[in-house]
């Protein structure tokens, strides 16, 4: 059996000037696994995703995807690796100049070179999977609510049926009901695709719904990782403070 991790990060360092964001981070995701990285604001969760995608270059460390080292990859080699990824951005990052179906089909048309008509049919199918009608396909993204934008972003992330999907704060800015809808859509879509997923969030409800395994990022490192069913029994004081949302605890929050 091939037990090469789908995604493996070893000793990853990333700084911005004097500010150290990732400080020797280690994380591994098995094929088909859903890992949620939790952590406070500004702890480097988004930086972690951007380093894996090559949007930021780590100063040190190794990032392996299906066993292939990807740090330093550029041009065509980077684009080849990116074909394995889908991503739902925090703000959905829909292209304002394109219609909704063109947004969903973008990776198929521009990335995979598929004909527009064929790509449109797939886009409509993916929109249906996230609960959006065909009637909306020709609309402008600016006409959508926050929840609908997330759904379109999710449809775009799964349109190319990638091996690995990243979700950046998928429920941030949504009401609890819409947040739950997005969590369920993520779970269903990922289960259908059999994809490996890495989600970053500080929404514990989202983490409990999506995750097989939860990892806590603090001080640029993963300070705790375990099954989602273990998190409530965890004796790590950082995790305990975070999941219960207490002000008192080891987190040095400057609120003055």
């Amino acid at each position, binding site marked *: 059996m091939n037990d090469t991790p789908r995604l493996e990060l070893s000793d990853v360092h990333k700084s911005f000037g004097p500010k150290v964001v990732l400080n020797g981070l280690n994380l591994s995701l098995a094929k088909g696994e859903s890992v949620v990285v939790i952590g406070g604001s500004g702890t480097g969760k988004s930086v972690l995703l951007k380093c894996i995608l090559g*949007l930021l270059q780590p100063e040190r460390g190794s990032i392996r995807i299906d066993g292939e080292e990807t740090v330093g990859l550029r041009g065509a080699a980077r*684009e080849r690796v*990116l*074909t394995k990824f889908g991503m739902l*951005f925090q*703000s959905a990052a829909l*292209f304002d100049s394109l219609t909704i179906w063109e947004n969903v089909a*973008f990776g198929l048309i*521009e*990335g995979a070179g598929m004909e527009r008509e064929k790509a449109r049919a797939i886009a409509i199918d993916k929109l249906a999977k996230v609960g959006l009608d065909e009637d909306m396909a020709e609309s402008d993204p600016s006409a959508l609510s926050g929840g609908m934008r997330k759904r379109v972003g999710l449809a775009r992330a799964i349109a190319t049926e990638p091996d690995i999907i990243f979700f950046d704060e998928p429920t941030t800015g949504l009401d609890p009901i819409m947040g739950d809808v997005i969590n369920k859509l993520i779970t269903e879509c990922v289960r259908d695709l059999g994809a490996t997923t890495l989600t970053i969030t500080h929404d514990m409800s989202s983490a409990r719904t999506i995750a097989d395994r939860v990892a806590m990022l603090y001080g640029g490192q993963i300070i705790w990782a375990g099954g989602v069913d273990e998190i409530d029994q965890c004796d790590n004081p950082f995790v305990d403070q975070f999941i219960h949302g207490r002000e008192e605890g080891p987190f040095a929050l400057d609120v003055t």
Partner: protein
Amino acid sequence: MYNPLAIVGRFFLAFLATIGRLSMFTGKSLSAVVTPPFYWRLCLQQMMTIGYYSLPVVGLTALFTGAVLALQIYLGSARFGAESAVPNIVVVGLTRELGPVLAGLMLGGRVGAAIAAELGTMKVTEQLDALITLQTNPFRYLVVPRLVAATVTTPILVLIADIIGVMGGYLVGIHRLNFNSAVYLKNSYDFLEAMDVTSGLVKAAVFGFLIALMGCYHGFNSKGGAQGVGRATTDAVVSSLILILISNYFVTEAFFSQ
């Protein structure tokens, strides 16, 4: 205690760093121009946005510049009895200098600002990152169509501006200054040389390239939300206008230095 030398040094180093970043951005953009895939549809869209929709503002500018030029030259040349030189100076002044420079300045404000604001907003809303994750090179998809469209359409706009500007001078010449219509047109045509028009069109292509380059560069490097996009837009307009005036001198030197 502030050290004046340290301040000058920091300013100079920051200036050099900007030159370096701009050079790298230009290199990447030019490399993307000659590397497939080419987005022809986007190029045509940008040609419409940059060229066609700029026609009214460039045309109006040229019309009134030609008219004012005819009036001013008439008033000036009347001092030494050279009123008949009005059509000659209007046509040469417009085709060599005022047509390309004024069109460039108008486009720098209109197009440079629009490009910087659009790309800057895409940057701060993670749309540029989204493009990359969808295996699309932002330089090929966003920068190249704008660079090509601006470089190709600005000379066409300037050619139209030249014609409209000469017509502006002609209208003032025959209706206000009592020139004979046929004589005015004949003098304009006879005096004009191919090099006058060619140099203006080459300038226009250079200006178009610089406007799009500055818009894209500042848009791609914007940060910090709405304020950052606003700053990028201002920087794009100011830098493109300055570069137009500087490059105008060097292109003129290159054409007419003998």
